[in-house]
């Protein structure tokens, strides 16, 4: 379907798709099998100028918007969601800076990201604080010109590989969520270490580790915004990132549909191609319809976000919820269409099905997405009375 992209947007998507075809697809099974971090692909993305899509031009980026970011993520996810997650997670670490960073902080941290010389990570989740992000226990205590951070962040994408992490920690425990603040913590700062690489079901090219802070002493100018803004930084960051998760789902589902449909054309049973069976056609028809609906939603919300609305939590959540549930369903059905072949690692759809699951979990579970949408609806309908 034609989404009336501009020539520039189409060029961007085509370039990302070229990278997916030429650099990602040929090695995705190997990256998955060996759980290798895709540094070579990150270098290729950097060389193609794709590491700075959302970073303003004054910091070396392309200065593009949410829609362009989604187009790139979608195209990369057609290749491998593990690789695309690595790429996307770096922006997750950068959003707090883009939204609330000081000029000095932006000057220092954004250009290496835009050039692709460095990655970043966003460190919020803790062992006792997942969906309940307000339950974080990491602390940051001011000590003269420094802050001293203590705590453990869990399941942090890119941790250990990223040059800096945006860490959310409590500067005032008595205020709960309102006492949280956001800090830039560099990989090489004293008191920073990383846990072992987690073994995951899917997105195995991406790396997930603990960030351990033990008396981590950082200069006070690493605070993003001001004290107590941590939770707002987090919410605004995730609002912006969620259509990106939806875009990953769209790319993944497109790839699964392509695999299943081409397979169905080739595979013969009962003397004919299985594509000719209505039972298979109906599966494919549902997959294609849900996929197109998800893509339309992601693009629409991304365009809405690019129009700079004041609040888009509900729309952001919708653009994550529907596409990621869709990708799970579509990848399960892709395996079903391909039968035993689909279940074998020789074909890419079993990996797609494993990769799809995380999309319903990370960046806020889909249950939390429904809470956000429900909360917004409740507010809207209260006003109307």
């Amino acid at each position: 379907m034609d989404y009336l992209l501009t020539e520039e947007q189409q060029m961007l998507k085509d370039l990302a798709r070229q990278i997916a075809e030429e650099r990602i697809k040929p090695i995705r099974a190997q990256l998955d099998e060996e759980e290798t971090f895709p540094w070579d692909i990150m270098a290729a993305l950097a060389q193609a100028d794709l590491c700075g899509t959302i970073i303003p031009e004054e910091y070396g980026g392309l200065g593009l918007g949410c829609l362009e970011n989604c187009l790139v993520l979608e195209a990369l996810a057609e290749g491998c969601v593990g690789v695309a997650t690595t790429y996307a997670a770096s922006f997750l670490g950068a959003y707090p800076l883009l939204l609330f960073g000081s000029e000095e902080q932006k000057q220092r941290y954004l250009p290496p990201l835009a050039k692709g010389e460095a990655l970043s990570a966003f460190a919020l989740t803790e062992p006792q604080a997942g969906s309940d992000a307000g339950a974080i226990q990491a602390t940051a205590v001011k000590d003269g010109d420094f802050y001293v951070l203590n705590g453990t962040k869990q399941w942090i994408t890119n941790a250990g590989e990223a040059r800096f992490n945006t860490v959310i920690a409590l500067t005032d425990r008595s205020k709960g969520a309102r006492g949280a603040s956001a800090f830039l913590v560099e990989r090489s700062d004293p008191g920073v270490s990383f846990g072992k690489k987690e073994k995951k079901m899917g997105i195995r090219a991406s790396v997930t580790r603990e960030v351990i802070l033990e008396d981590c002493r950082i200069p006070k100018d690493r605070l993003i915004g001001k004290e107590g803004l941590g939770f707002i930084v987090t919410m605004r960051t995730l609002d912006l990132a969620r259509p990106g998760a939806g875009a990953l789902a769209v790319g993944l589902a497109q790839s699964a549909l392509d695999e299943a449909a081409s397979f169905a054309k080739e595979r013969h049973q009962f003397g004919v191609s299985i594509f000719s069976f209505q039972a298979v056609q109906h599966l494919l028809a549902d997959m294609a319809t849900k996929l197109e609906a998800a893509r339309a939603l992601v693009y629409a919300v991304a365009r809405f976000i690019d129009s700079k609305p004041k609040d888009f939590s509900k729309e952001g959540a919708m653009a994550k919820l529907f596409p990621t549930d869709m990708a799970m369903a579509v990848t399960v059905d892709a395996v079903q269409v391909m039968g035993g072949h689909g279940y074998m690692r020789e074909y890419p759809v079993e990996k797609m099905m494993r990769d799809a699951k995380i999309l319903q979990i990370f960046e806020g579970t889909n249950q939390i997405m429904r809470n956000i949408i429900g909360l917004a609806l409740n507010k809207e309908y209260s006003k109307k009375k």
Partner: protein
Amino acid sequence: MLRIIVCIKQVPETQEVRLDPVTHTLKREGVKAMINPFDLYALEEGLRVKEARGGKVTVLSMGPPQAEEALREALGFGADAAVLLSDRAFAGADTWATSLTLARAIEKLGGADLIFCGKQAIDGDTAQVGPEIAEHLNIPYVAWARKLTFNADDLLKVERLLDHGYDAVEVELPALITVVKEINEPRLPSFKAKLRAKKEPIPVWGLGDLGLPPEEVGLAGSFTQVVKVFPPPARGTSETWTGPPAELAARLWQRLQSLGPSVVFRK
């Protein structure tokens, strides 16, 4: 500041080559085109030399007006400038007339320190144009380069790929180098370069711009001419059957039997 020129050719995408049954020439209209794959390696090497030693990379191509797309694509990889040589008078050129036209354009550009070409084009497969350009310009050339090393600012060590191993030669600049795929891994296009490439003016030079007499270019300036192009004769007819193996085997057996006594079966 090295003046680097990379010569590229737009060729049909390999799977889509069709011949015009009347004129016996390649059908180019409506056929997807691409940069000759070997030329991408030539371009990459030009860009690498520029990045390592400073300079300017200009891409040059002779072809129909649509060859401009190939030049824009080359700019998208990071080339600095592009020139298209296009004129009805250039049509039908053999390798001699083509290389003469390219050589005159290189002179018009003010000459070059290094000229890169792919080892050959995948449509004509002659591998002649590169070396001929060097002959017209009266500069040395090294064909089939798989590795370049600068021994001095104007002295290049070149490893030439041979059937069994390689040999190493030294060549003084200015020189022309044709490259094989072993020399590098071409980069991806970059988004910023592609944006620039969209707007970059690409001059089109014709016969008048190059100061060449009409009888030295195109078909008129060619010593050779394609008289006939033909696909190898088909070896009988073939059919493709699909279906379950047992069914196919039975069908095949029936067919072989129906072919009669010319087919002999022995245990």
